[in-house]
């Protein structure tokens, strides 16, 4: 097996013990990218020279006997809405086509501090606005399981890169499901941490009250390793939380006696019966692991998605205001400042970004703000309260991650509302500020199905334990797309 397809533990140990070098690991990752990415389109920028130089630095440090962190020599891909110093960072938007980041995001810096090697920047829906990665201004990423299907989104490039084993792990960002849904559609593991767990410093803002960086990997343990490397308080992000973390080894072990809640609102008439069956089969596995399973209700769940889209578009309209052609990014000259703004934004933003800016401005406008933006915040509070109450009675909630398996490219592209509905099972965890993980739990027509485990705030340890126990008891995560 090429070294880049080993687990994070195996790569890190192998590099430290000099079984192979960090350079060899990165070379094997770059070779895999060269061989496959023309067909998949996961990467917007491959950091060939930078990654080989970084790998050599790791090898040199090991040769000198210096301490190297837990991710020694591990190739990692980073979603292109996350700053990487000296490297083009586009957020998949034409407005940032030539933008070069002048600093590393805290999450990127922490990966580097642990010895990880950033090998490239992955494709996404423009600024994270989408569920299929088709809204990228540059390319459409294909699902490695079926090249006529979407990888999900918005972290579709990261999910596809991990699924195709181009990298063992990647960073994504999740505002309403953008790590978990593509992880589910590509058959990999994706973790959305609690809001505040991972610093947003250097993450290009889409919806500041919801955006959260998290890992995608081929196993729960690898996702946990990446999470633990990037998590923790950061002075550069005052919304980051100073909550205790836990050792990686603590995700192993028995989950006997844990109580799982099945929210009935996620299992409605008309849902894909094959997905229902995959989730129910997974519940049988948990029962065999001596977990208790009980139905619960979170009645306002149906309002999560509408409240989410009002919140998102409102914050988008504010966050996108910074792209004015003055300080960075695309700039189209005009006779006046206002003309320059309009022409720059007209040329630089794609249709979904414009749609959300317009809708957000409407939701925040005088006469409508109380019915839309303010009401969405009230609904958010109510939903948060309901989930927090339910999670006092159970240790976690289990649901499907996505209402469908990977859909065909173009199938939902022209109908934004249909695309928004892809997030229906993932958005509640964001709205309620809860951590959630997606793990592979089945296949339908040779396409992966994802299982979502939702936990209490800052209790990522519990959902990782549940996911790890499930993964150890099943073999879905071992399936790989034939490339």
């Amino acid at each position, binding site marked *: 097996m090429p070294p880049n397809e080993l687990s994070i533990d195996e790569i890190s140990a192998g590099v430290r013990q000099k079984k192979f070098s960090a350079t060899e690991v990165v070379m094997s990752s770059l070779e895999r990218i060269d061989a496959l990415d023309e067909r998949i389109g996961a990467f917007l920028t491959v950091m060939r020279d930078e990654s080989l130089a970084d790998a050599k630095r790791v090898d040199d440090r090991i040769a000198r006997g210096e301490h190297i962190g837990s991710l020694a020599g591990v190739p990692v891909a980073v979603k292109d809405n996350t700053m990487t110093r000296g490297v083009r960072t586009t957020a998949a938007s034409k407005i940032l086509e030539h933008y070069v980041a002048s600093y590393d995001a805290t999450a990127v810096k922490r990966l580097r501090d642990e010895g990880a090697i950033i090998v490239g920047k992955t494709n996404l829906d423009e600024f994270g606005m989408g569920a299929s990665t088709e809204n990228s201004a540059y390319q459409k990423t294909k699902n490695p399981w079926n090249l006529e299907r979407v990888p999900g989104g918005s972290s579709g490039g990261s999910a596809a890169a991990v699924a195709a084993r181009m990298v063992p792990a990647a960073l994504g960002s999740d505002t309403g499901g953008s790590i978990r849904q593509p992880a589910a559609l590509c058959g990999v593991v994706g973790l959305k941490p609690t809001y505040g767990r991972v610093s947003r410093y250097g993450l290009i803002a889409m919806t500041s009250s919801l955006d959260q960086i998290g890992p995608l990997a081929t196993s729960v343990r690898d996702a946990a390793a990446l999470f633990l490397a990037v998590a923790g308080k950061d002075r550069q992000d005052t919304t980051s939380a100073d909550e205790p973390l836990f050792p990686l080894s603590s995700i192993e072990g028995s989950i006997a006696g844990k109580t799982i809640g099945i929210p009935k609102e996620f299992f409605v008439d008309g849902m894909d019966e094959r997905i229902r069956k995959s989730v129910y089969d997974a519940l049988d596995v948990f029962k065999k692991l001596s977990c208790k399973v009980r139905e619960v209700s979170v009645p306002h769940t149906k309002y999560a998605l509408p409240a989410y*889209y009002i919140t998102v578009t409102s914050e988008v309209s504010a966050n996108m205001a910074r792209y004015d*052609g003055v*300080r*960075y990014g695309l700039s189209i000259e005009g006779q006046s400042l206002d003309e320059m703004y309009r022409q720059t934004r007209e040329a630089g933003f794609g249709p979904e970004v414009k749609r959300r800016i317009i809708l957000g401005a409407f939701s925040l406008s005088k006469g409508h703000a109380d019915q839309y933006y303010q009401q969405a915040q009230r609904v958010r509070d109510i939903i948060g309260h309901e989930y927090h109450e339910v999670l006092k009675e159970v240790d976690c909630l289990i649901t499907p991650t996505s209402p469908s398996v990977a859909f065909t490219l173009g199938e939902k592209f022209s109908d934004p509302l249909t695309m928004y509905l892809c997030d229906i099972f993932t958005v509640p965890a964001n709205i309620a500020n809860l951590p959630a993980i997606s793990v592979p739990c089945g296949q339908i027509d040779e396409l992966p199905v994802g299982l979502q485990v939702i936990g209490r705030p800052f209790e990522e340890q519990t959902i990782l334990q549940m996911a790890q126990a499930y993964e150890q008891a099943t073999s879905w995560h071992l399936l790989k797309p034939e490339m």
Partner: protein
Amino acid sequence: MALTISEIDHLAKLTRISLTNEEKELFRTQLDSILEYAGHIREVHDTTAVSSHPPKSLEDISESDSIVQFSDADGLVAAVPKRNGRSIEVPPVKDAT
């Protein structure tokens, strides 16, 4: 809630986005269906739970003002599309009259 073309025009002007007539018509139709769906939140009247789950810790997170040298100030300046030395050049704020 149905948006009119003139409302779309007004919102585009507010947000400094130029839209073609085709885009305005397309957005009007799409935003209508999105607003119809999103408008369901107005059915929610239960406000008893509002703010009943505050963040775990509420504390003053403001910090004292102190000037810190950014690690790559030249990189920030280099990102400016149009500049004169270290100054940013912009067109006139008001139309020439």
